[in-house]
């Protein structure tokens, strides 16, 4: 108990020292060196607890300047937010709270150390991710719809193109300009598959095509407001969580792609006796244009989970590049002789549904 008594004596001694210290501080300019901010803020906090609000503000303000160490600036802004709240200066309190979250966006308020008004204020500030890093996967839901602009045939037949499902996966980086607009770029491995069927002179031919592109989409995203969706979702505990946990986003942009590999399976059946001739897994990269460019659009829905979000995206892309290298169309005599096949002018369109998770790497405070 002697120790307790000593501490009480020590505390009352300290209070006297603080008053003298404040008088000393007010007599001079506010150009305090940052090294003693820790002590100054401790004293300012005591003044705040005693109700000397304007003195506490004057003491704490210099420690909130850019030149002060981050830990001191953090303490100063937190204290200033509390003091301004206590003095009913809500605008300045909000400004200080915004500064707090600029410094430490992942701060979890303490019900013990933070006044309830400060917790409410922190929760009212909109915080959105600035940079995000996402991973997306689509298994069996990436469908390729070939669009034929000119057909090339070596006999009298009509080719039938059939869309096939395949996969895509990749990573993306997003930059959020504000609550509504963001820009995303990514790198995706996209597998496109489609079939071609045709019949002539008792022969039935099936060509199965696979093309794998490394695509780089760049899209502008627009987040629909909760009002449009007819819902209002309360923020969860903690301050860093965005105001709306569920978001729907519209996307539009362009993409470029590099063909990594292209292969085709040829199978022709002589119908009278079902004789089958096959050429499997033929590398067709030299008959393809290596690069493609196009337009991409989509809609995404995301749900905040932890420091990131789970998302479901539906994208539609339309390539503006012919996949066939026209100069090499007639080079493959083996194919035209054995399968009566020539490459058409084909533009790929794809529809995909992908699922993924996006990590928030940092945050920004939306000041209103």
């Amino acid at each position, binding site marked *: 108990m002697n120790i*307790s008594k000593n501490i009480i004596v020590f505390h009352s001694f300290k209070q006297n020292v603080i008053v003298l210290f404040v008088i000393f501080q007010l007599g001079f300019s506010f150009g305090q060196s940052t090294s003693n901010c820790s002590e100054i803020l*401790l004293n300012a*906090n005591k003044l705040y607890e005693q109700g000397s609000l304007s003195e506490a503000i004057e003491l704490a303000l210099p420690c909130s300047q850019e030149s002060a160490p981050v830990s001191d600036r953090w303490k100063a802004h937190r204290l200033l937010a509390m003091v301004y709240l206590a003095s009913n200066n809500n605008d300045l309190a909000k400004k200080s709270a915004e500064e707090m979250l600029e410094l430490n966006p992942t701060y979890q308020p303490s*019900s013990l150390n933070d006044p309830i008004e400060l917790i409410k204020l922190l929760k009212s500030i909109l915080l959105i991710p600035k940079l995000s890093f996402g991973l997306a996967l689509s298994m069996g839901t990436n469908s390729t719809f070939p669009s034929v602009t000119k057909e090339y045939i070596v006999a009298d037949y009509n080719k039938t193109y059939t869309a096939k499902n395949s996969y895509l996966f*990749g*990573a993306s980086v997003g930059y959020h300009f504000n609550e509504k607009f963001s820009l995303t770029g990514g790198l995706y491995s996209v597998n496109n598959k489609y079939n071609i069927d045709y019949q002539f002179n008792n022969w039935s031919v099936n060509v199965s095509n696979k093309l794998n592109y490394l695509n780089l989409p760049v899209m502008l995203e627009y987040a629909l407001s909760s009002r449009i969706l007819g819902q209002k979702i309360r923020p969860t505990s903690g301050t860093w969580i965005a105001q709306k946990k569920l978001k729907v986003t519209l996307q539009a942009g362009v993409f470029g792609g590099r063909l990594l590999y292209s292969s085709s399976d040829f199978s022709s059946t002589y119908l009278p006796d079902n004789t089958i001739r096959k050429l499997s897994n*033929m590398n067709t990269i030299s008959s393809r244009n290596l690069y493609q460019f196009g337009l991409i659009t989509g809609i995404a829905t995301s749900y905040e989970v932890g420091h990131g979000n789970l998302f479901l995206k539906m994208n539609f892309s339309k390539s503006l590049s012919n996949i066939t290298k026209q100069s090499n169309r007639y*080079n493959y005599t083996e194919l035209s002789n054995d399968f009566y096949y020539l490459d058409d002018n084909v533009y790929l369109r794809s529809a995909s549904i992908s699922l993924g998770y996006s990590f*928030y790497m940092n*945050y920004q405070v939306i000041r209103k």
Partner: protein
Amino acid sequence: MKIKIKSSVFIVLMFLNSAVFSQIDAKDLLFRSNKLYNQGKIEEVIKLLEPVVHGKLLNREQTFDAYRILALSFMYSLNAEKTDYFMKEMLKLRVDYQKYPNIDPTEFTKLINKYVVRPQIYAGICFGGSSYLPQLMKSYSVYTSNQSYERTSGYQYGGFFEYRLKSNVSLGTDVLINGSAINHKINDANGWEQEYKEIRKSALVTVVGTNYRKLNDVVNVYCGVGLGMNVLTSSEGNIILASNQSDLVLQSTTNTISERNKISPVGLVRLGVDFQTNRGKIGFDLTYVDYFNTTVNSEKRYNNADFIFTNQYVSDDIKLRGMMFSLSYKVPIKWVVK
């Protein structure tokens, strides 16, 4: 039946009640402890909080607050051992406390700033492109005309773990899925231009030692050396024969995995830069990779006789070497407080 439903509802209500009351108890306990601490009744604070701090009464945030009050109380009661223990516990729960502290007594701030808090284990993901230029060790070509191996591009993606032995030294392991290619051109193969392309897919597992140098609070540069094992999972060869006299082009494709060395030891050297974000680090790195053995299994070089005789092409002994460029993102999953 009705009785059963009633008793179930009663049990659920009892459970909810007890959960709500335990939260009220926890809050009340912390407020009482804080009040006692402010009154200087340190012994009472310790008696009240220490027995319950490791129990299930307090949630994570409340536990942090309890550790802080106990650390402060033990510091003023001159119990260095317990002060050290509770300071470490509070730093484990809030690893950025030194950067974003409460307004603490100066002696407490000085003490807590003496601890080193740093990430011990990182987990990350990466993806990127690669560029390989094979090195010809021994030619088995049936032609003596000009021939060359072209530079090819590829890709890789995967994940990694990194264990920090010190704040600036780490030992990490990468598991990458690799796509690469070999492109061999023979200008004059008896009146034909011959081009052989091989598409390879593999899994690359590496162990890399890395040294970091801090440039400022945000940017680190690093260099590393490592060893790894490349496991070939698929390999497809395609040969295109273009006649020098006519437009005739012939081509054929074959699965070459049975003639390839499936496991290849590799050495690598890495240079990179990373940027600290609020959560984790973004890194850009460049890795030089050198395969220690040849791509072809010499005992099985001539196994695919049909392909060899039809196309007059025999695979040479080549070693792969190249650069991988990767973009990575990693987050600390375990911290150390010393």
